């Protein structure tokens, strides 16, 4: 249960080795009775996010063992594995970022509706704002997730369950190691604190950093000719 300070007690972090996920969970206000369950490829709650039966099994177990107050879904693939073809990278990213994550959201929302309370944090991306030649494949998987999550948030109105979306820009992490810093790059810890803010925000979407909200607006508003020039640089 949330406690009287609206502080979650039992938390599941799906993507237990995600740096952003961990940064969010560790920056939540201290709660001595907190239990954080890490769902990852290995460990007690092992899950291969691309395995449908595995997703069903893990979600059922999490909720059968007790109420879950907060689920942070922090799984994601950039799809830049040099050993795979472009097409295979795309499929892998789709399976994790869209199919796996959306299915998890659906299963978790169903169980949370039964307990009539709980919070879900889904991690989308700035990449889904507008397709760019360098990251539209990854961006499309996040766009699908983002679209679904916004719809689910509406569908959850009045159920006692709330869903929030975090849209980070470029985060300097293991996932982006070796890549050039994009503008407005932030650290994992900074991104985590935006995640914590997202949970108490009244808004559905929290950008990390906040300025990206306006950048996204500009991005979407630019005429195609100009956008093409900027994004092909």
């Amino acid at each position, binding site marked *: *249960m949330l406690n*009287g*300070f*609206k502080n979650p007690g039992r938390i599941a972090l799906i993507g237990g080795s995600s740096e952003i996920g961990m940064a969010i969970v560790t920056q939540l*206000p*201290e*709660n001595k009775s907190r239990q954080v369950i890490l769902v990852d490829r290995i460990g007690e709650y092992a899950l291969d996010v691309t395995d449908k039966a595995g997703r069903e099994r893990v979600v059922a177990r999490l909720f059968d063992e007790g109420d879950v107050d907060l689920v942070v879904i922090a799984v994601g693939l950039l799809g830049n594995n040099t050993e795979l073809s472009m097409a295979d990278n795309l499929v892998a990213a789709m399976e994790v970022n869209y199919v796996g994550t959306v299915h998890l959201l659906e299963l978790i929302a169903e169980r949370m509706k039964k*307990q*009539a309370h709980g919070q879900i944090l889904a991690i989308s991306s700035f990449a889904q704002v507008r397709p760019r030649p360098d990251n539209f494949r990854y961006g499309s998987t996040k766009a699908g997730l983002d679209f679904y999550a916004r719809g689910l948030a509406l569908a959850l109105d009045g159920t*006692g369950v709330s869903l929030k979306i975090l849209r980070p820009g470029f985060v300097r992490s293991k996932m982006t190691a070796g890549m050039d810093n994009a503008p407005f790059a932030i650290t994992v810890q900074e991104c985590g604190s935006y995640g914590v803010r997202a949970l108490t925000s009244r808004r559905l979407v929290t950008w990390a950093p906040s300025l990206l909200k306006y950048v996204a607006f500009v991005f979407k508003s630019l005429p195609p000719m100009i956008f093409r020039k900027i994004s092909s640089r």
Partner: protein
Amino acid sequence: MSTTSSSEFSGWGKNFQSRSERVALSSIDELQGLLTKAGRGRGFLPIGLHRSYGDSALNSGGTLIDLSALNTISIDASTGVAVVGAGVTITQLERAALMHSLFPPVVPGTGFVTMGGAIAADIHGKSHHRTGTFSACVRRIKLLLASGAIADYTPEDAEFWATVGGLGLTGAVLEVELQLKSVKSNSADVTERRVKNLAEMIDVLGGADADFEHTVAWIDLSGDYRGRGVVSLGNYGATSVKSKDSNSAGPKLPSIAGKNFITPLSVRAFNEIWFRKPLKNGPVALGKYMHPLDGINEWNNIYGRDGFLQYQFVIDIGKEEIFERLFAGLRSLKAASFLGVLKKFGEQSQAPMSFPRRGWTLTLDYSTKVPGLEKFLQEFDEELVAAGGRIYLIKDSRVSPSLIPAMYPELNKWREIRRTMDPTGLWQSDQARRLHLC
């Protein structure tokens, strides 16, 4: 016919919402039917008027059973024995009893508590040092069990004591038989004394036990946090006074844009005025004296949409040094409380989960938005447990479950009796889930 609605409910602290179904039942038959027919889901919880501050009377995803239809009062004026429905409030019982020059011996700070709630919390009042808790005047309870069976329990039964203070988790109280006390009038003879610090307050309160039936102190925990305040002492009076005869509270305090008006500055200003108010000396209507908070309806709106929490604990006599540490901590957080109450308890009841026991009890109200308060209270809880103290669960929404067995050493005994009364875990609450009570 029963009416069912689904919506959000809060405890009196309004510090969080819980969504559940509420079924208002018109008869006991109907209730039995509901329990035996309905799918179990997230369980059932009998509720009263949601005067518990935290999540004791919430059951998210489950069903709340509203028993306010059980509202009969029958009083035998010759013996002073009352048989009262579970939905009757303390104020309603007081009014009915006063017509026969009787009065419930134990009443809490608000009259808007039902008989069912009074049993579930084993409430106490200003008279605890003399009379003990509410259960001390109860001779019998009629309880609806999870099986649908109805049983009468008396203080001879373990089930009686498991239900007293049992937070509604052993069954639904349907009826209470209690022994009223005879009084000469509808008033209390009240004496108030100003005290300049905690030491003096403890001195005056402790020394008043023998001479006064009702003792309590308002303590100012703002400004210099020295614990100045007003000690209020009373006995049942002999002269009747005019009193307002209505079942509703005073004017309603509206919620103004969900804003919190409790700040260190506003509390300090209020407390300064309260400390200097003219002292009462003489007869005061019993209802007004016993339930000072009922003068303003929905006063809990003053804390705004984020709500507040009430922290009440008891500590042994001789362990008063813990107050100093608490006050120093609250002062450093600039956490100001405008409803601080200190009271000396008498003996503990037999109920394993009943809160009061011999010692000092302090009650404080705080906005949940005081920075650092959550962490501080978690640390203070540990100090409290180390000193042998405990907190009152009917007020709680934030204690760590790991501390409950130390605070309530008879928890396991209670669990065992509860299990025999509700083997399938039909009765549930958010608090029971949060604190792993069952």
